[in-house]
């Protein structure tokens, strides 16, 4: 293992690599002063050509833009690791990269899997989403939109089912229809807010076909985090899910904190 911390040392690193020092794998930080991880990767690739070792990008921010991930995959990174990285994730990325290299192919499994528009958790997987709507067609439309964005939504049809689902399993985001018979979206959200510990609370987005400004205030006051009108607008939904990611990261979502607990970054 060799560490190179800044541009001068990176240059030395490139020279060492170019000069024949063979590393089995290079783990490269993304955000570094002067020369970032992508530039460094390009420089290494220029020097080593086909003999370039597997590269793993190490990044403090979850890369979110699809073009960023495509760029990273296009540069031949075997994996993207988000800081702080769990030791087993790093180990897996390292062993996958070395194995792929030994087998003579240059796949980018992690980077490729992430070429979606989905907002991601710190471990790089899409946010977990529960869609709640009693209207079958809206369920289908909403779930097709979410799937096309890269999420794997669970779908339920009532406020009671929504609350039960949230108690049984952790969801990062709940897309909650307001107008439902029996227990409506506001009552279901109140129940979830009341029963779940703060650190495990989902980000709740109200969905409604009755779009009125004064209603919006009421939803936010009753414990919902955001509001979207139906028919759903993909750009607005995407923005809301990004906001959810930031909100959960800032709060230190209990589930995320647990996942990051054995981090090494």
């Amino acid at each position, binding site marked *: 293992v060799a560490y190179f911390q800044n541009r001068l040392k990176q240059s030395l690193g490139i020279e060492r690599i170019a000069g024949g020092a063979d590393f089995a794998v290079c783990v490269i930080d993304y955000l570094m002063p002067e020369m970032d991880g992508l530039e460094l990767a390009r420089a290494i690739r220029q020097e080593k050509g086909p003999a370039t070792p597997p590269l793993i990008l190490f990044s403090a921010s979850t890369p979110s833009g699809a073009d960023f991930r495509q760029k990273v995959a296009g540069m031949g990174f075997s994996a993207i690791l988000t800081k702080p990285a769990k030791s087993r994730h790093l180990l897996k990325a390292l062993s996958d990269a070395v194995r792929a290299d030994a087998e003579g192919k240059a796949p980018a499994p992690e980077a490729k899997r992430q070429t979606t528009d989905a907002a991601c958790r710190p471990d790089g997987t899409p946010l977990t989403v529960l869609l709640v709507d*009693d*209207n*079958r*067609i*809206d369920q*289908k*439309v909403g779930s*097709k*939109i979410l*799937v*096309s964005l890269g999420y794997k939504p669970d779908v339920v049809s009532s406020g009671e089912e929504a609350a039960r689902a949230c108690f049984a399993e952790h969801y990062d985001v709940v897309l909650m229809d307001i*107008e439902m*018979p029996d227990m409506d979206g506001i009552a279901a959200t109140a129940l979830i807010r009341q029963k779940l510990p703060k650190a495990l609370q989902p980000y709740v987005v109200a969905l409604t*076909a*009755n779009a009125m400004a004064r209603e919006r205030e009421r939803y936010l006051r009753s414990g919902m985090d955001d509001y979207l009108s*139906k*028919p*759903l*607008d*993909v750009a607005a939904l995407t923005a809301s899910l990004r906001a959810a990611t930031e909100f959960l990261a800032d709060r230190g979502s209990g589930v995320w904190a647990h996942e990051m607990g054995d981090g090494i970054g």
Partner: protein
Amino acid sequence: MALADDTIELPALRRLLEVIGGDRADLVELIDDFVGGAPELVAQMQAASSAGDIAALTRAAHTLKSNARDFGAVRLAAMCAELERASREGAVFDAPVSIAAIAQEEEKARTTLGALNVEDIEA
């Protein structure tokens, strides 16, 4: 393509096709759901109206409004929205008349959608 009348607004269907990811088979499936389910919602309105069940009337009108909007049935959506609003405010005086008009418009929307060739909708 042009539709015979303005019962269905194509831009809404184009938009729907786009938001669900552009797969026409998915759009056909959704249209089938609407065509299959809309008469039931009208029947629910009629039953709720006869039974004087305002909550059920509001709900059925709300659901059909929402679905009609998705598929570009703008007049049907507006009629349902009006019935929903009146019903929510407890101000429905001529429910059977409104529902009869909605039933007629729903049938037109269903027929138009059923005859639509989704291949003609530009992505």
